[in-house]
């Protein structure tokens, strides 16, 4: 009795497995045709749907209230403050990529903005001609020769390749906010930073919404292009068409 049940169960299981494999192979084929950078498209699209729901009901409304209620100089101060908080980590990554002159500039920016710029609220360094750089550990790994891996979409944090997901984890360790002792202060800072970032993306929302035939694909391809641009510090080699 048990045996026959087991057997039929196994048969059924095998049939299912076979069907599943065929389906996977089919999906694999179409996806390989569609975009070699997006092998996990099915997973990503479902995560994207979750993300959109969270954004619609939580992140975006909060960012809109913030954007409307807070006067521009304060918003600029908040943006500058978090820029300054991340400056040391930017400098570390410049150095890890062998860009020591850039790292010097980053350190100079940190010193000037933390003092003359009053805890980073004012970006005095930019006005003095010390240009702000855009570095993170994902870019550092790319400069070291790591491939990007497949594209992933995570709820809340959004687009990341496999490499950039790892990089993001390391960036968290390099984030001074994580070392603030007081938990309420730490969480407030994290919350405010998310709102600040989301608010800065509000103008882009409408453009993406209107421009995209397929919003998921539009965001994915924009992310991949932008990362390539960041890795090459704004001067990526031209791709042949």
């Amino acid at each position, binding site marked *: 009795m048990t045996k026959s049940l087991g057997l039929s169960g196994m048969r059924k299981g095998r049939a299912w497995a076979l069907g599943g494999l065929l389906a996977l192979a089919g999906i694999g084929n179409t996806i390989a*045709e*569609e*975009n070699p950078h997006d092998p996990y498209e099915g997973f990503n699209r479902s995560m994207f749907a979750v993300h959109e729901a969270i954004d619609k009901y939580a992140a975006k409304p909060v960012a809109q209230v913030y954007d409307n209620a807070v006067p*521009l*100089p304060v*918003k*600029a*101060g*908040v*943006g*500058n403050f978090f*820029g300054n908080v991340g400056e040391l980590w930017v400098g570390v990554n410049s150095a890890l990529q062998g860009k020591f002159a850039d790292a010097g500039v980053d350190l100079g920016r940190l010193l000037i903005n933390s003092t003359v710029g009053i805890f980073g609220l004012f*970006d005095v360094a930019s006005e003095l001609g010390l240009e*702000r750089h*855009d570095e993170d550990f994902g870019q550092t790994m790319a400069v070291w020769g790591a491939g990007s891996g497949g594209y992933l979409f995570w709820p809340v944090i959004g687009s990341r390749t496999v490499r950039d997901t790892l990089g993001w984890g390391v960036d968290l360790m390099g984030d001074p906010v994580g070392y603030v002792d007081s938990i309420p202060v730490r969480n407030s800072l994290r919350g405010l930073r998310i709102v600040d970032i989301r608010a*800065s993306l509000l*103008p882009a929302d*409408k*453009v993406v919404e*209107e*421009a*995209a*035939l*397929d919003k998921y*694909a*539009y965001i*994915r*391809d*924009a992310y991949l*292009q*932008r990362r*390539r*641009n*960041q890795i090459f510090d*704004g001067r*990526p080699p031209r791709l042949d*068409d």
Partner: protein
Amino acid sequence: MMKKLFALLLAGFLASTAVAQEAPDVLVQRVTEEVLEIIRHDKEIQNGSTNKVIDLVDKKVLPHFNFQHMTALAMGKEWRKASPQQQQQLTAEFKTLLVRTYSNALTSYKNQKVVYKAFKMAPTDTDVLVRTEVHQPGNKPVQLDYSLEKLDGGWKVYDVVVAGISLVTNYRDQFGQEVRNGGIDGLIASIANKNKSLEANQKK
């Protein structure tokens, strides 16, 4: 009388060659500043009037764009599969889509400042990249680059790149997908549908 007429003709001729020979970086800067100056003084555009801003872009910006080239670039290898008539339809629909979406982006212009990067080209160059940056308080500057090609009618923009994202090639996978699903005509239809729904929702 003849002298006056001749002088007038000469002046007209000089003016037109001056425009034709305007260097690509000078062209980008001139058009950008003209457009921003108008937006700064136009309350309707600042309040999001799509018609008004499209009108402005139509007059000031579009004459300097090569939409056929942009469409070909967005299509990639699919472009050659389209008949000349389909290419024409694609170009028309894609132009409408780009103009509407990115003109709307102009209505959210507030107090950004455009900085023009140093530009160098050889006299024989026919394909150049003009680099600018948009600065806004509290945010990282955003890179805004234009690819231009030299044609008989002067320099024409065929790609706009924001923060490293080409607004043209970013469509390539989406277009490819539409072509696989419904052929070239399917792609034309889906861009046309998108345009229609945007027009139906627009703020006058």
